[in-house]
């Protein structure tokens, strides 16, 4: 069981900055995120897009903002449970919370901070009627272990980076790779597009463009896909696996059933004080919360994180009096033994 002071659900910019604010108060943190990497939307949807409204940064790429936050919080040694979704919450006798992920990892903390953005990112499933029947029977939306596909026939669908990257990777692993895309153009990185074109010429990838997978065949396990081609009509391709890679979309998911007050797909909080939810000890910060006048901006999330950590401190140490210290005065003392502080002024007599 993982034990921490503040359990943060969601490792986007708001969740990451919470580690820093908690660290200044000497509170330990641990983050859970459904994505395999930190950064939330900034890493998953638009890492190469510039953001112009982070105070003090006239322009910063979303991906760089995440890198900077990771660097900023490093001294506070946050724990990470990545690639797992927070599934259930339970209040224990000692007034702490037990949060269990979809893979069964258990986390225990006196304070839970939900910084879940628009929710956990789930793969977008193409609207093929019987697709859910074949999940784990040849249909996969995420490639976890590429070795599964060794010497097997694979059909990949999609036109973005992940479809291209996995086509390239699996060309050397699978016995046969077919890439199906609705267009002749691909949205992915240019060199990946060129590499796929090369592999197609070499006969290592079968490329079917202007086409869409519409049907799945098989009994116990998938045996083939039915493809609708714009000009050639219906094509059937025999395969052992079908991997549709159409990106991810956020869903509020299990958090919606935690007994929290939900309004318009967001969690209602007390914004006149500390962003606490209707369940004492559970806070919601960043894009996941809502209150009168809420702005879904990264900077709002940062502000909410700072306020929320002060309240969390009071909850964890009700008898202690805490005075907020400026980092310019007190510096930053990490849990890893590092200390950052302002250089002492050198005073030199003039005469």
């Amino acid at each position: 069981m993982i034990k921490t002071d503040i359990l943060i659900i969601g490792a986007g910019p708001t969740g990451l900055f919470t580690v820093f604010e908690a660290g200044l108060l000497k509170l330990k943190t641990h983050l859970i995120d459904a994505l395999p990497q930190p950064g939330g939307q900034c890493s998953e949807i638009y890492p190469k897009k510039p953001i112009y409204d982070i105070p003090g940064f006239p322009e910063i790429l979303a991906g760089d903002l995440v890198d900077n936050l990771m660097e900023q919080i490093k001294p506070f040694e946050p724990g990470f449970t990545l690639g797992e979704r927070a599934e259930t919450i339970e209040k224990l006798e000692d007034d702490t919370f037990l949060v269990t992920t979809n893979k069964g990892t258990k986390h225990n903390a006196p304070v839970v901070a939900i910084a879940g953005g628009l929710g956990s990112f789930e793969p977008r499933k193409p609207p093929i009627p019987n697709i859910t029947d074949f999940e784990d029977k040849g249909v996969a939306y995420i490639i976890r272990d590429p070795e599964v596909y060794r010497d097997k026939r694979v059909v990949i669908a999609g036109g973005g980076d992940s479809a291209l990257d996995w086509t390239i990777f699996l060309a050397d692993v699978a016995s046969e790779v077919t890439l199906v895309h609705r267009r002749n153009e691909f949205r992915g990185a240019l060199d990946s597009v060129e590499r796929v074109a090369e592999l197609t010429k070499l006969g290592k990838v079968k490329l079917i463009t202007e086409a869409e997978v519409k049907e799945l065949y098989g009994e116990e396990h998938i045996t083939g896909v039915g493809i609708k081609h714009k000009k050639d009509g219906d094509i059937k391709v025999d395969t052992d696996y079908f991997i549709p890679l159409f990106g991810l979309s956020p869903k509020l998911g299990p958090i919606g059933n935690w007994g929290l007050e939900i309004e318009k797909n967001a969690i209602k909080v007390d914004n006149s004080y500390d962003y606490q939810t209707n369940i004492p000890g559970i806070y919601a910060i960043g894009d996941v919360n809502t209150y009168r006048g809420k702005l879904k901006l990264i900077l709002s999330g940062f502000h909410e994180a700072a306020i929320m950590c002060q309240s969390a401190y009071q909850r964890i140490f009700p008898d202690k009096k805490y005075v907020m210290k400026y980092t310019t005065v007190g510096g930053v003392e990490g849990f890893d033994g590092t200390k950052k502080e302002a250089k002492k002024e050198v005073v030199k007599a003039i005469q």
Partner: protein
Amino acid sequence: MSDITIKIKDREGVVHEVQAPTDMAMNLMEVCKAYELPVEGTCGGMAMCASCQCYVLSDHQLPEMGQDEDLMLAEAFYVEDNSRLGCQIPITQELDGLEIELAPES
């Protein structure tokens, strides 16, 4: 400059007639959100998520589709010939009387 009227059919088939300002640099996705219609706008309007996909029902002349929008629609679901991304359609006087339908959620 004045407001224009847009008819938006939601996913339950209910038609909402809404007023949209032409002088606030708004797009169709933002109009839907302003009226609390069920459009997520996950990516904020960068043509990167297709959560604002809609079908254009009237024969208004819309701004030509950019490459970003075209390629995003190439990966979206339930795409029809009249599909557009709401976030890529700025509200202008010419769109007065526009009729759209929200595409299914995916």
